[in-house]
């Protein structure tokens, strides 16, 4: 099992793009009991990854509840960095 923050970043290397809700949905099986697996913390973690050039924004829209939903992806260089630091 990886630390939660690693799993969040690593998730982006396995999908084309994802938003915070997608990440939570994908990780809740293994990390469901973690207090830090909540939307606010996951968004902050993703945006920190973006600020450090690991992830980039792809698009954004409103979800069914009228809440902003931002999608991100790991571009080639970002994915390579994530994979070199965080092994499977």
């Amino acid at each position: 099992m990886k630390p939660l923050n690693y799993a969040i970043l690593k998730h982006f290397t396995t999908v084309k793009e994802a938003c915070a809700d997608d990440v939570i949905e994908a990780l809740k099986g293994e990390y469901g009991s973690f207090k830090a697996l909540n939307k606010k913390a996951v968004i902050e973690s993703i945006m920190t990854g973006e600020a450090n050039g690991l992830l980039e924004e792809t698009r954004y829209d409103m979800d069914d509840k009228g809440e902003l939903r931002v999608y991100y992806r790991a571009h080639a260089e970002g994915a390579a960095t994530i994979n070199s630091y965080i092994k499977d």
Partner: protein
Amino acid sequence: MNEVTGAANLVAAKKKLSSKFFKKGITVAILSGMFYGLYSTFLMLGMSKGVWADWYGPNEAMLSAFVITYMVGALGSAINDTISGIWCMGIAAFKGKLGDFFRTLKTKPGRIMIMAALVGGPISSTAYVVALQMAGSIVIPITALCPAIGAILARILFKQKLTPRMMTGIAICFLASFMIGSTGLGGDAPAGLLLGILIAFIAAFGWGLEGCVAGYGTSMIDYEIGITIRQTTSGLANLLILVPIFAILAGGGFGLSTDLFIDAVTDASAMPWFIVSGFFAVFAYSLWYKGNSMCGAALGMACNGAYSFWGPFFLWLILGVVLGQDGWTIPPIAWVAAVVMVFGILMIAMNPLDLLKKKEA
């Protein structure tokens, strides 16, 4: 019409999210500098009570000048960082992150964080103390170069943005730190001045490296886990390696370090202050890492660098105003420097011309 309003709301919501993240990064980085000032103040208070008052004062314990100069300072840092590490473990346990702490230690980013902690903790802190002893207070503004060094290293190592405007802002912040440090400059420069200044650059380089490496590491490691690694590494390395080395160099053998350690931790008048300083140190460093990871090393470290103002400010407020001790008054130049520093930080964060453009619009 509704579609147009919906699209406008969407763009506004996205702008709000980005601006909230940016503002939070700056707030976190500024708070880190304030907590740095608070932790330094309470550490200084702890190191003026009980056995520490004797070691630095009448010295009835008959410690040598070497022990008082180097070892007692390192012991103070060691106890502070170890207590801070215990606080971090408690906070991590409360937030359910202790498992991730141990899992992170075994990974590459975890090991990098340990190295950054060793460089910034025992190595830089000792270099700082030694430089201070050799060259006097001129080393204080030199160590204030660490944000500039951090920003340059972040540009080289992590390709972070560093424009001429940001470099100008860093230079203004350095000037402000120099203004504050210059108030301590006097006829206290001893013979080892040049070597002392060179050693001060080691401290500045170490802190710059720690800030940019650990800041980048915090983009992968949760910042509360990062700080737990930092404080436990620094505390244990100081306590189990650095202090015993000083004890052996002082000719007292390993036993001297355990004797002084026991004297210090059993002192009921000093220890409560170390518990407080260790608590504030948690936020001084964790918010430093978090701020650097949220807004880049250049801006994060410049905001944190305001500790060169917050340090004297809290010393004046707590030791001077609240506890009535003499000698903590802030000279007027430091207040001016604080304003200069705010301008420097603004310069790194944004183009001042944008403010004018907004007014025009």
